[in-house]
């Protein structure tokens, strides 16, 4: 029997209330009084983002190319920008008690060395493992990127992260707290995507947008909850940053800080036509931090030459255990 695709059309569902599965987030019922309008205004912001891509991936060895970037704008004028690029080389090593460790060292390529210490994780670490499996060495590439992003935000003025302020990996909060302590102004984050929902199953961001109706943007709604999660020191909001924007975004500000101290400057940057409603500083950071596949492939070529053909063939042999998907994609 054919599937009735009409079932996919959104139903007119009640907004419900913000829903958080973690009890440390106490949701606050929707209330139009929590909308605040504001005017876009030029101001200083530092946007931070990172990217990583796999260069070598075997079950016991991973090399990832990581790039972290920040820019500072005052209104429409770029003040500074900085980039840090490094390799994360992760190996699986046996430890005492039958445990296995993922040990990563970083090798700086360009810019400041953000991570001074090597990283070591139990491969059963629940914050890394997915679906109950052991973590793969490649996971440490993303971990190193997250840590480096926090380090990059240190000593910045009004740092804005791409994403949220939530820490999710063991010891990440050490880096976040240092960043909060050392940065100036107000720490915030703007997430392009959100997986929050309402009690009726609506996406939370879209529910707020419906609640806003034809309210003139820029506006901010929130807080959405009272947040006592110690690894997520943030107040949560939804913001629309330009009147002609199609998107609203999840916005977070360091717990206890005034969201309106940075939102006018974010709205000012959100007037850029390339992505109306999304701050130009984050567009720039996303672009500059991204590590394209082609770039990782080039690095692979360099490493192949450095390693030598014999050793490279060994690595290729090992990678056969994990790269069948890639082959299938090319068939």
């Amino acid at each position, binding site marked *: 029997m054919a599937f009735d695709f009409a079932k996919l059309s959104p139903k007119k569902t009640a907004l419900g209330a913000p829903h958080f599965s973690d009890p440390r987030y106490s949701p606050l019922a929707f209330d139009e009084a929590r909308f605040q309008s504001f005017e*876009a205004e030029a101001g200083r912001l530092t946007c931070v983002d990172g990217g990583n891509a796999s260069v070598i991936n075997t079950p016991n060895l991973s090399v990832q190319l990581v790039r972290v970037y920040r820019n500072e*704008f005052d209104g*429409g004028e*770029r003040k500074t920008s900085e980039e840090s690029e490094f390799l994360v080389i992760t190996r699986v090593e046996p430890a005492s008690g039958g445990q296995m460790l993922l040990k990563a060292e970083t090798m700086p390529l360009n810019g400041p060395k953000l991570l001074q210490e090597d990283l070591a994780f139990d491969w059963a670490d629940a914050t890394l493992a997915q679906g109950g499996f052991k973590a793969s060495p490649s996971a440490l590439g993303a971990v190193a990127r997250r840590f480096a992003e926090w380090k990059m935000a240190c000593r910045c003025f009004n740092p804005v992260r791409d994403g949220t302020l939530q820490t999710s990996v063991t010891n990440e909060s050490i880096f976040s707290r240092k960043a909060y302590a050392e940065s100036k102004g107000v720490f915030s984050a703007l997430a392009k995507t959100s997986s929050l929902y309402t009690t009726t199953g609506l996406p939370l961001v879209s529910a707020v947008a419906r609640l806003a109706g034809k309210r003139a943007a820029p506006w901010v709604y929130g807080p959405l909850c009272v947040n006592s999660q110690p690894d997520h020191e943030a107040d949560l909001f939804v913001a629309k940053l*330009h*009147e*002609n924007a199609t998107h609203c975004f999840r916005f977070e500000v360091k717990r206890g800080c005034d969201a309106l101290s940075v939102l006018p400057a974010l709205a000012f*940057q959100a*007037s*850029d*036509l*390339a*992505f*109306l409603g999304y701050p*130009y500083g984050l567009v*720039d950071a996303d*672009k500059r931090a991204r590590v394209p596949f082609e770039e990782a492939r080039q690095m692979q070529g360099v490493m192949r030459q450095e390693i030598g053909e014999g050793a490279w063939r060994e690595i290729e042999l090992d990678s056969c255990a994990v790269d069948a998907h890639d082959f299938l994609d090319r068939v």
Partner: protein
Amino acid sequence: MEFVGQIVSGAFGEILARQKSGEELEIGELLACDEPNGIQLLQVYDLEYGSQIQPETIELMSGLRLEGKGEKTSFFEEELRHYVLAKVKGLVTVRGGKAVSTKTLPKFFNGLRRIRDADLSFLDKPEKPLFLGRLRSGSKAIDKRIELDGEKVLSHHVLVPATTGRGKSNLVKVMLYELLDKDYCGVLVMDPHNEYHKSLKKHAKAGEWLKSYSPNPEGGQVSLRVNYAALKPWHFNGVMPFSEAQQQTLHLAYKTWEKDWITRLLAGDSLGDKVQDVTLNVLQRKLGLILDGRVFVKNGSETIVDDVTGHLLDSKKVVIDTSRLGSEAELLVASVFTNALFNRRKAAQTDKPVVSIVLEEAPRVLSEAAGANVFSSIAREGRKFGVGLIAITQLASLIPREVLANLNTKIILGNEMKQEREALIASASQDLSTDDKAIAALDKGEAIVSSVFSRFAVPISIPLFEEHASAAAASAPARKAFV
């Protein structure tokens, strides 16, 4: 270093460079790239927009602006995100003051700057110079005279193709003015608008070097009259069409009546049973039309052909005013002098001085339809005897490819007609395959010189004749005054 662009991608002959914001590169502009082993000179041949933003997004932005929804919107760092990409090609590499063919790509990401005088030190003045104009970068003339080896260029033929109003006459006047007192060449100029004599007589040495003939002579001109006896049947080749029977009759008449053949034909004398009356009648009518008595005469002027060829071999510049003649009569005059010159040259054991023949609407005699004639012979083998053509035309495509290829220097002026540009590009001495837009965009007085005697296709700016002549007169030593 003041860079105006930077190499970002491309391939040999089609390098892509990003234009620096605030700069404005032009099609045809000359750029330099400093390399470890010399300076690469490059030329812009195309321009296009570049953007870091996806096309769909740009179209949406445009919609927002056009539909009045673009208030409170802007472009951040516009100079970084929207830019111009210039397609450039290598012309030559300059090493130690000498130009060599470019065979390498400039270093990736290298900066490009505008050319400087020092980059052009290899453009030295030849011993026997033919001035064509000043070096041009885009639309900017550079104070560097472009002079090719005149003796070689003239003997290997010159083509001046352009549509009306692009400065053909001006170019030829400037060239002739510069050549006037040069003793390495004689030039025969067919002057259908009676403009070259008026222009060239301004030259300080015109009295010595310029010889002018006109059916209605004015100050300084000699009467243009050609005696029938100077005419030969083959002079009519390419001038007007004759059937095979008519051609045979012309030759028979010449064989029979020798120097009186024209007079007898025009008089309607019989050649006997070998020629039908109708053929004779048609010939009489055709010859009567072309030999209407204004230039071609039964009596007198027996020496004019020798005089003209003698002047040419003495390196004089001979201007023939054909402004009051029909096209066929003009060609016949040219044919008579050119045949005589070519025959004298063939008989002599020298190819010096080189003699060039300036001919407007050259396809009249060089096209396939014109058949074999003295001009097409010169185009094919004239250089062996030091005789060349300066062929001027709006329709180079009518000239057969083989002949076009023999015209070894092409001074290409602006041309809107694609078919014409294609004919020129296909027969140029350098690879001009990327210069189609540059040729179409040439303004009046701008040209591209493609020659086997230049290292690259040289963009030039041709000075206005009046200004050029005035400047030359001002800088020439004052004539001695006899009191």
